[in-house]
């Protein structure tokens, strides 16, 4: 969903840059409470991992592709404020070194994939975790739904920005239909990858998953062991 230069006018790009700057500034303050000696290197790892997985475009219908955004996954793993910082670093590296996403559009991309995807992904995750059973399956389902919804929501926020500051003159309904439709499908991939990665980390080191802290006590008190979810050991498949 990397927005190139030229799609949005200068006013809109400057506005999203301001929004992104405020968001990142807030994240710099908020992340202080999420990070310590042990978790900071893991946050770096998470960002590097998201960069790598974002290169893996998966095919979607109609000769289209999509890739993980990673906002929900990162937020559940290392916390939402840290996730904003991780996503921002990934987007800056992509824009500056690899020309993936425009530079005047960097604020737009940080807003969409850093702020919106993280906020929706993590917000939905927390809301569902509060009502679903406090099990690993409940946690994975919450993260999966959050990840799924984060993608079409970010796409629709782009459509909103496009309605404010499109350079091209095209019918907004058409843009919304295509963007919404294809990103619902990409969202399914986002959910699948998020659940697979999170499931794998939970299987080996649940203590390192920030969003799973509430499970620690629950698991310790559980009367019987829950069967581990069937996580494909893709890491062994090379």
């Amino acid at each position: 969903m990397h927005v190139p230069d030229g799609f949005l006018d200068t006013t809109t790009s400057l506005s999203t840059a301001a929004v992104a700057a405020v968001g990142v500034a807030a994240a710099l303050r908020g992340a202080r409470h999420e990070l310590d000696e042990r978790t900071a290197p893991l946050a770096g790892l998470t960002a590097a991992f998201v960069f790598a997985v974002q290169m893996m475009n998966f095919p979607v219908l109609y000769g289209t592709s999509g890739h993980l955004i990673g906002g929900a996954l990162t937020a559940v793993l290392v916390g939402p404020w840290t996730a904003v910082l991780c996503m921002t670093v990934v987007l800056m590296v992509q824009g500056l070194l690899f020309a993936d996403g425009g530079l005047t559009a960097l604020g737009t991309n940080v807003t969409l994939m850093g702020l919106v995807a993280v906020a929706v992904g993590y917000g939905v995750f927390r809301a569902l975790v509060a009502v679903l059973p406090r099990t690993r399956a409940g946690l994975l389902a919450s993260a999966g739904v959050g990840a799924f919804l984060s993608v079409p929501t970010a796409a629709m926020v782009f459509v909103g920005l496009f309605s404010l500051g499109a350079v091209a003159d095209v019918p907004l309904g058409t843009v919304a239909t295509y963007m919404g439709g294809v990103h619902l499908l990409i969202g399914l991939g986002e959910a699948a990858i998020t659940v697979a990665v999170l499931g794998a980390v939970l299987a080996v080191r649940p203590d390192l998953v920030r969003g799973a802290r509430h499970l620690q006590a629950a698991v310790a008190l559980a009367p019987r062991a829950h069967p581990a979810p069937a996580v494909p050991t893709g890491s062994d498949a090379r």
Partner: protein
Amino acid sequence: MSTLTRVRNPSTRGLWVTGIVLALLIAGVGSWYASAHPDGLEWSAEQSGFGDSAQDSVAADSPLADYAVEGVDDGRLSGGLAGVIGVVVTLVLAGGLTLLVRRRPAGSGADTAGTPPATAREHG
């Protein structure tokens, strides 16, 4: 940076090393097999008729533009190398940033006297 040396907890190191190896394999090898179709936004832009309004980024002349290393002719090697560089740069920047931002253990404020300007400006 000293990111690597910070990982003292051996049990954390296991996950960390596994994650890095996986990321390098995905970016360095797996990315060759990624779908080359336009992504959702590109496709939507083409279908709706505003794909043409995209402009080349100022960074389009970067030696790593479009995930290829300038001067490396073999596509697989070029893309893989670009991916590995991206993973390493992202790791160093994000790891460095989060280490800077992190909460210091209590009492270490006096120990980090070597970097007074950064801490002196903080009011929060």
